[in-house]
Protein backbone atom coordinates (compact mmCIF):
# COMPACT_ATOMS: atom_id res chain seq x y z
CA UNK A 1 0.00 0.00 0.00
CA UNK A 2 1.03 3.56 -0.63
CA UNK A 3 2.10 5.68 2.33
CA UNK A 4 -0.77 7.19 4.24
CA UNK A 5 0.50 10.67 3.49
CA UNK A 6 -0.68 10.28 -0.11
CA UNK A 7 -4.22 9.85 1.10
CA UNK A 8 -3.89 12.69 3.54
CA UNK A 9 -2.79 15.05 0.81
CA UNK A 10 -5.59 13.92 -1.49
CA UNK A 11 -8.07 14.37 1.30
CA UNK A 12 -6.64 17.81 2.07
CA UNK A 13 -6.93 18.87 -1.56
CA UNK A 14 -10.57 17.81 -1.76
CA UNK A 15 -11.28 19.43 1.59
CA UNK A 16 -9.85 22.76 0.50
CA UNK A 17 -11.70 22.63 -2.81
CA UNK A 18 -14.88 21.98 -0.84
CA UNK A 19 -14.17 24.89 1.47
CA UNK A 20 -13.54 27.16 -1.47
CA UNK A 21 -16.85 26.05 -2.95
CA UNK A 22 -18.75 26.71 0.25
CA UNK A 23 -17.19 30.13 0.72
CA UNK A 24 -17.34 31.47 -2.79
CA UNK A 25 -20.37 30.11 -4.64
CA UNK A 26 -23.74 31.86 -4.50
CA UNK A 27 -25.93 28.93 -5.45
CA UNK A 28 -27.15 27.20 -2.29
CA UNK A 29 -27.37 23.83 -3.97
CA UNK A 30 -23.74 24.00 -5.04
CA UNK A 31 -22.81 25.05 -1.51
CA UNK A 32 -24.53 21.95 -0.21
CA UNK A 33 -22.72 19.85 -2.77
CA UNK A 34 -19.41 21.34 -1.65
CA UNK A 35 -20.24 20.27 1.89
CA UNK A 36 -20.71 16.73 0.57
CA UNK A 37 -17.26 17.00 -0.93
CA UNK A 38 -15.82 18.01 2.46
CA UNK A 39 -17.46 15.03 4.12
CA UNK A 40 -16.00 12.76 1.50
CA UNK A 41 -12.54 14.17 2.06
CA UNK A 42 -12.91 13.16 5.68
CA UNK A 43 -14.03 9.70 4.63
CA UNK A 44 -10.88 9.16 2.59
CA UNK A 45 -8.81 9.85 5.68
CA UNK A 46 -10.84 7.48 7.77
CA UNK A 47 -10.54 4.74 5.22
CA UNK A 48 -6.81 5.21 4.83
CA UNK A 49 -6.26 4.97 8.59
CA UNK A 50 -8.58 2.01 8.79
CA UNK A 51 -6.45 0.24 6.22
CA UNK A 52 -3.29 1.31 7.99
CA UNK A 53 -4.38 -0.20 11.30
CA UNK A 54 -6.03 -3.13 9.63
CA UNK A 55 -9.26 -2.63 11.53
CA UNK A 56 -12.69 -1.76 10.26
CA UNK A 57 -13.57 0.84 12.89
CA UNK A 58 -12.66 3.62 10.50
CA UNK A 59 -15.05 2.19 7.95
CA UNK A 60 -17.84 2.20 10.51
CA UNK A 61 -17.22 5.87 11.05
CA UNK A 62 -17.32 6.42 7.32
CA UNK A 63 -20.71 4.73 7.26
CA UNK A 64 -21.92 7.07 9.98
CA UNK A 65 -20.64 10.03 8.02
CA UNK A 66 -22.50 8.87 4.93
CA UNK A 67 -25.64 8.51 7.04
CA UNK A 68 -25.14 12.01 8.30
CA UNK A 69 -24.62 13.27 4.77
CA UNK A 70 -27.89 11.67 3.69
CA UNK A 71 -29.77 13.31 6.55
CA UNK A 72 -28.14 16.63 5.84
CA UNK A 73 -28.94 16.46 2.15
CA UNK A 74 -32.58 15.57 2.78
CA UNK A 75 -33.14 18.36 5.26
CA UNK A 76 -31.07 20.88 3.34
CA UNK A 77 -32.86 20.24 0.07
CA UNK A 78 -36.19 20.30 1.90
CA UNK A 79 -35.35 23.75 3.18
CA UNK A 80 -34.34 24.87 -0.29
CA UNK A 81 -37.60 23.68 -1.78
CA UNK A 82 -39.63 25.28 0.99
CA UNK A 83 -37.74 28.52 0.57
CA UNK A 84 -37.98 28.42 -3.18
CA UNK A 85 -41.73 28.22 -2.98
CA UNK A 86 -41.89 31.49 -1.09
CA UNK A 87 -39.18 33.28 -2.90
CA UNK A 88 -37.98 31.92 -6.20
CA UNK A 89 -34.26 32.11 -5.76
CA UNK A 90 -31.48 29.70 -4.98
CA UNK A 91 -28.79 32.32 -4.38
CA UNK A 92 -27.45 32.47 -0.87
CA UNK A 93 -26.96 36.24 -0.79
CA UNK A 94 -30.55 36.87 -1.86
CA UNK A 95 -31.90 34.85 1.04
CA UNK A 96 -32.02 37.93 3.23
CA UNK A 97 -35.57 37.91 4.55
CA UNK A 98 -34.34 38.23 8.13
CA UNK A 99 -32.24 41.26 7.34
CA UNK A 100 -33.68 44.69 7.40
Amino acid at each position, binding site marked *: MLPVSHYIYLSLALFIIGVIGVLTRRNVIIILMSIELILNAV*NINLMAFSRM*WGSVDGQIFAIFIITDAAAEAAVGL*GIIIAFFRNRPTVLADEMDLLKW
Partner: protein
Amino acid sequence: MMLDSILFYFFAALAVGSAILMVTRRNAVHSAVFLISTLLAIAGIFLQLQAEFLFVVQIILYVGGIMVLFVFVIMLVNLDVAVRQMKFNRQSWVAGLLALVLGGLAVVVYRSGGGAFNLMGAPATTMPPNAEQVGTVLFQKYFLPFEIASILLLVAMIGAVVMAKRKI
Protein backbone atom coordinates in the same frame (compact mmCIF):
# COMPACT_ATOMS: atom_id res chain seq x y z
CA MET B 1 2.74 -3.15 -6.43
CA MET B 2 2.85 -0.83 -9.36
CA LEU B 3 -0.75 -1.44 -10.34
CA ASP B 4 -1.89 -0.23 -6.96
CA SER B 5 -0.24 3.14 -7.27
CA ILE B 6 -1.38 3.57 -10.86
CA LEU B 7 -4.92 3.05 -9.66
CA PHE B 8 -4.46 5.48 -6.81
CA TYR B 9 -3.03 8.25 -8.96
CA PHE B 10 -5.69 7.75 -11.60
CA PHE B 11 -8.54 7.98 -9.11
CA ALA B 12 -6.92 10.82 -7.19
CA ALA B 13 -6.43 12.87 -10.34
CA LEU B 14 -10.01 12.15 -11.40
CA ALA B 15 -11.33 13.14 -7.98
CA VAL B 16 -9.38 16.39 -7.74
CA GLY B 17 -10.01 17.38 -11.35
CA SER B 18 -13.74 16.74 -11.11
CA ALA B 19 -13.90 18.52 -7.77
CA ILE B 20 -12.31 21.62 -9.26
CA LEU B 21 -14.72 21.50 -12.18
CA MET B 22 -17.59 20.98 -9.76
CA VAL B 23 -16.80 24.18 -7.91
CA THR B 24 -16.26 26.24 -11.02
CA ARG B 25 -19.10 25.20 -13.33
CA ARG B 26 -21.84 27.75 -13.79
CA ASN B 27 -24.63 25.27 -14.44
CA ALA B 28 -25.74 23.43 -11.34
CA VAL B 29 -26.48 20.25 -13.27
CA HIS B 30 -22.94 20.18 -14.61
CA SER B 31 -21.66 20.73 -11.09
CA ALA B 32 -23.72 17.80 -9.91
CA VAL B 33 -22.38 15.58 -12.66
CA PHE B 34 -18.80 16.46 -11.79
CA LEU B 35 -19.50 15.84 -8.12
CA ILE B 36 -20.84 12.43 -9.10
CA SER B 37 -17.64 11.73 -10.95
CA THR B 38 -15.65 12.83 -7.88
CA LEU B 39 -17.66 10.53 -5.68
CA LEU B 40 -17.16 7.63 -8.06
CA ALA B 41 -13.43 8.29 -8.06
CA ILE B 42 -13.46 8.29 -4.26
CA ALA B 43 -15.33 5.00 -4.38
CA GLY B 44 -12.54 3.74 -6.59
CA ILE B 45 -10.03 4.78 -3.93
CA PHE B 46 -12.04 2.85 -1.35
CA LEU B 47 -11.79 -0.17 -3.58
CA GLN B 48 -8.08 0.35 -3.91
CA LEU B 49 -7.98 0.38 -0.11
CA GLN B 50 -9.67 -3.04 -0.18
CA ALA B 51 -12.86 -1.84 1.42
CA GLU B 52 -15.38 -3.38 -0.99
CA PHE B 53 -18.31 -2.87 1.29
CA LEU B 54 -17.68 0.85 1.64
CA PHE B 55 -17.12 1.02 -2.11
CA VAL B 56 -20.58 -0.34 -2.70
CA VAL B 57 -22.13 1.74 0.07
CA GLN B 58 -20.54 4.86 -1.39
CA ILE B 59 -22.06 4.12 -4.78
CA ILE B 60 -25.51 3.05 -3.59
CA LEU B 61 -25.99 5.73 -0.97
CA TYR B 62 -23.97 8.65 -2.23
CA VAL B 63 -24.19 8.35 -5.95
CA GLY B 64 -27.41 6.40 -6.29
CA GLY B 65 -29.26 8.11 -3.46
CA ILE B 66 -28.07 11.47 -2.24
CA MET B 67 -26.94 12.77 -5.60
CA VAL B 68 -30.17 11.70 -7.26
CA LEU B 69 -31.92 13.84 -4.69
CA PHE B 70 -29.66 16.75 -5.60
CA VAL B 71 -30.26 16.33 -9.31
CA PHE B 72 -33.99 16.15 -8.69
CA VAL B 73 -34.02 19.36 -6.72
CA ILE B 74 -31.80 21.13 -9.22
CA MET B 75 -34.21 20.20 -11.98
CA LEU B 76 -37.20 21.27 -9.95
CA VAL B 77 -35.78 24.68 -9.15
CA ASN B 78 -33.85 25.02 -12.35
CA LEU B 79 -33.78 28.69 -13.11
CA ASP B 80 -32.67 29.81 -16.49
CA VAL B 81 -31.87 33.18 -14.96
CA ALA B 82 -29.48 31.68 -12.47
CA VAL B 83 -27.26 30.55 -15.29
CA ARG B 84 -26.76 34.09 -16.46
CA GLN B 85 -26.11 35.53 -13.05
CA MET B 86 -22.81 36.06 -11.31
CA LYS B 87 -21.70 32.70 -10.03
CA PHE B 88 -19.30 33.79 -7.28
CA ASN B 89 -20.20 36.16 -4.52
CA ARG B 90 -18.48 39.48 -4.08
CA GLN B 91 -16.02 38.50 -1.39
CA SER B 92 -15.05 35.39 -3.27
CA TRP B 93 -11.42 36.34 -3.74
CA VAL B 94 -10.97 36.93 0.00
CA ALA B 95 -12.66 33.64 0.77
CA GLY B 96 -10.66 31.73 -1.81
CA LEU B 97 -7.43 33.22 -0.52
CA LEU B 98 -8.27 32.33 3.05
CA ALA B 99 -9.16 28.80 2.08
CA LEU B 100 -5.84 28.41 0.30
CA VAL B 101 -4.06 29.81 3.33
CA LEU B 102 -5.87 27.24 5.46
CA GLY B 103 -4.74 24.53 3.08
CA GLY B 104 -1.16 25.79 3.20
CA LEU B 105 -1.30 25.88 6.97
CA ALA B 106 -2.47 22.29 7.07
CA VAL B 107 0.38 21.23 4.82
CA VAL B 108 2.91 23.08 6.98
CA VAL B 109 1.51 21.57 10.16
CA TYR B 110 1.56 18.09 8.70
CA ARG B 111 5.08 18.47 7.35
CA SER B 112 6.53 19.80 10.54
CA GLY B 113 4.56 17.79 13.05
CA GLY B 114 3.57 14.69 11.13
CA GLY B 115 6.44 12.73 12.58
CA ALA B 116 4.81 12.89 15.98
CA PHE B 117 2.24 10.39 14.80
CA ASN B 118 3.01 6.87 13.84
CA LEU B 119 2.05 7.11 10.16
CA MET B 120 3.23 4.17 8.20
CA GLY B 121 2.17 2.29 5.15
CA ALA B 122 -0.33 -0.40 5.80
CA PRO B 123 0.74 -3.99 6.11
CA ALA B 124 0.88 -5.66 2.73
CA THR B 125 -1.45 -8.40 3.86
CA THR B 126 -4.86 -8.28 2.27
CA MET B 127 -7.82 -7.60 4.49
CA PRO B 128 -10.27 -10.40 5.14
CA PRO B 129 -13.66 -10.34 3.42
CA ASN B 130 -14.95 -6.97 4.24
CA ALA B 131 -18.73 -7.05 4.36
CA GLU B 132 -19.00 -9.63 7.11
CA GLN B 133 -16.39 -7.89 9.23
CA VAL B 134 -18.13 -4.54 8.93
CA GLY B 135 -21.43 -6.15 9.78
CA THR B 136 -20.07 -7.89 12.85
CA VAL B 137 -18.39 -4.79 14.21
CA LEU B 138 -21.34 -2.57 13.38
CA PHE B 139 -23.86 -4.74 15.14
CA GLN B 140 -21.72 -5.56 18.16
CA LYS B 141 -19.31 -2.81 19.05
CA TYR B 142 -21.20 0.08 17.48
CA PHE B 143 -24.74 -1.05 17.98
CA LEU B 144 -25.89 1.96 19.99
CA PRO B 145 -24.44 4.54 17.58
CA PHE B 146 -26.04 2.56 14.78
CA GLU B 147 -29.47 2.88 16.37
CA ILE B 148 -28.88 6.55 17.04
CA ALA B 149 -28.00 7.00 13.38
CA SER B 150 -31.27 5.37 12.41
CA ILE B 151 -33.12 7.82 14.63
CA LEU B 152 -31.21 10.64 13.01
CA LEU B 153 -32.37 9.41 9.62
CA LEU B 154 -35.95 9.15 10.84
CA VAL B 155 -35.84 12.70 12.15
CA ALA B 156 -34.32 13.94 8.93
CA MET B 157 -36.98 12.16 6.91
CA ILE B 158 -39.80 13.67 8.93
CA GLY B 159 -38.14 17.05 8.79
CA ALA B 160 -37.71 16.90 5.04
CA VAL B 161 -41.30 15.82 4.47
CA VAL B 162 -42.69 18.49 6.75
CA MET B 163 -40.61 21.18 5.12
CA ALA B 164 -41.20 20.24 1.54
CA LYS B 165 -44.90 19.62 1.82
CA ARG B 166 -47.04 22.37 0.45
CA LYS B 167 -49.85 22.19 2.95
CA ILE B 168 -49.66 20.16 6.11
